[in-house]
């Protein structure tokens, strides 16, 4: 059985940019054929998951207000399946990094990401989250959240318009649709298989390490 193209109801397929990337992804997944039963179940589960993505309320600055606008009456992301936002990372499927991430915030963001249950997704909203934006040269700003956590969708803008945020969220839905839930994203990795994390923490001072050991 083959994986289908990532089609979602709300917008015609041709109107999406970036179809090539997702089609390449589909082709890659199709290389090793899937069992019909597993494939059909995958389709069903992906349909369900892509239409009920709940995001974590994580807004640090201006983009957060636009994100609130997207949640309010005029734009209303609940129409597309982003029903509610959750305040606890344990209950969230995706994290919208809306705003600048500073040095002080970076470990907090990493921890929130680690606390989320798999499969989890990250959307970088706005210039600051993508690259540092207007504050790129600052001593206290992380130039892009992809340095600490993997990002699925980037939404440029300063801040992005609500339409842009919706578009980006729909791109994520399409990405969710081209996943193999069984034996793919949801497969449990053994400890040996774990890839080396996006950032290896090496600069913990000895003092902190000692304290941690004491706590344990």
């Amino acid at each position, binding site marked *: 059985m083959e994986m289908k193209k990532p089609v979602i109801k709300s917008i015609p397929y041709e109107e999406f940019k970036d179809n090539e990337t997702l089609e390449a992804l589909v082709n890659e997944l199709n290389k090793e054929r899937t069992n019909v039963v597993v494939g059909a179940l995958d389709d069903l589960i992906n349909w369900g998951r892509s239409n009920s993505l709940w995001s974590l309320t994580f807004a*640090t600055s201006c983009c957060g207000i*636009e994100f609130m606008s997207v949640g309010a009456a005029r734009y209303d992301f609940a129409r597309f399946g982003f029903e509610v936002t959750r305040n606890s990372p344990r209950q969230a499927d995706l994290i919208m990094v809306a705003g600048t991430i500073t040095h*002080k*915030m970076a470990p907090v963001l990493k921890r929130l990401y680690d606390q989320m249950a798999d499969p989890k997704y990250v959307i970088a909203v706005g210039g600051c989250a993508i690259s540092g934006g207007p504050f790129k040269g600052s001593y*206290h700003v992380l130039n892009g959240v992809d340095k600490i956590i993997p990002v699925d969708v980037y939404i440029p803008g300063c801040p992005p318009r609500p339409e842009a945020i919706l578009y980006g969220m729909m791109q994520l839905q399409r990405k969710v649709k081209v996943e193999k839930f069984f034996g793919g994203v949801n497969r449990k990795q053994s400890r040996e298989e774990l890839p080396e994390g996006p950032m290896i923490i090496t600069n913990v001072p000895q003092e902190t390490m000692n304290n941690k050991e004491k706590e344990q």
Partner: protein
Amino acid sequence: MNITFIQPEKFREQMEYLRRERGMDFLRELVGMDWGEEGIGAVYMLENSETKENVQVATRSTNREAPAIPTVSDIWKIAEMYEREAFDFFGIIFTGHPDLRRLFLRNDWVGYPLRKDYDESEELNPVRMFSENVENDCTHTLAPDGTLQRNPDTLFDNNEYIINIGPQHPATHGVLRFRLSLEGEVIKKTDVHCGYIHRGVEKISERLTYPQILALTDRLDYLSAHQNRHALCMCIENAMDVEVTERTQYIRTIMDELQRIDSHLLFISCAAMDLGALTTFIYGFRDREKILDIFEEVTGGRLIQNYNVIGGVQADITATFAEKVKAFCKYIPKKIKEYNDVFTNNIITRKRMVGVGVLGRDEAISFGCTGGTGRASGWACDVRKRHPYALYDKVDFKEVIYQNGDSFSRYLVRIDEIMESVRIIEQLIDNIPEGDYKVKTKPVIRIPEGSYHATVEGSRGEFGVFIESRGEKSPYRIKFRPMGLPLVACMGTLLNGNKIADLMTIGATLDYVIPDIDR
């Protein structure tokens, strides 16, 4: 602006004199400054809340290793936070300060970033991915001879029950962090942590030219984007002796007021949402979109407009602007009635707001809580009346003042201010004179040597810009007065003794915006 320099030895005595004899009860700003060889110190801007008289004094120490200045935190309460900020940025040691910790940066930060000789290399301050060491959260006191004494864990006892709120928490309106010591449900002690969105705007600005800095002010308090930029443009225009046209003044004033309504609508929405009334949130955002539509048509931006420029505004108003604004002014009073029906007069709202988190008038002044919070406590602190700018001396409007100082008064001030803003707009919208929307300025903007200061009434308080210029294309030092820092500073006073659930009410009605505090 005249600044009187005082020797550090006589400083304390002089400040006490200013407070007692001349009634300077409002510390508007404390600007840390690195004068290079002349020393490191701070500029203090004081105001008499009765007579509106202003005084600027400064003091500095030539010892760059450990510059010591006596504290004034026992004279003005807000100085405690301001001095922590100056310590964080410049390493100024305020002798006698009860709690000299870093305010924005991590405990293990190396160096003082706003000093001119700060080393920005990544090796010194890499992105540290481990949690901050909580043990360091202790009080520092300083002996009079300048030696730093560390008193570990005096802030909270070992047997106290401490809970942590934030930085990722919906009730903190952004990335603010509290540590609260509880006894049952009652809050005993509060410790506020800022800096989770500190972007170092003031340091970046020292490298940018003046027109480039304009882009950053919108992103400080994004709900006062117009007012912030107005303040910076006004400061630069005053310094360069540029006179803007009458038309510009009209456009700026109308835009400022629209922005204020926008911000207050968001305040009502979020305050209601924090208290569990999601309906009002949806209503507020529905009406807010109408203002954003007007902004978008004229400026091209929704939330961040980048509209004011030095010498005028970016683009002329559109043909349908006046018509749309008038339609909005007709529309909003009816909706205010709706909010009152749905939310303000709701028994739950009243029970949760009335009498909760009372801030007295003297405390409001001592903490420098301007804006709606100060006016709810009976302090007439509106910059539009105190030091009129733009067209505010020509229009007729009432300064909304309540006396109770509780959460409900703070809420009502905003509701009434929307109506006053509508009144201001209605007086101006039909009389916008013809003329240029922008005067020509020099291609390269330089400000003559000296210190300059301008303030406007932002959506949630006095927003000030202080520029120290050496005649270059970029400022030697630029400082923005955060509207929110005093509001956060008084959180401890308001929370202690209240129930933990009141944190939501008090935080919501103080109406702070975190990126404005942290800058």
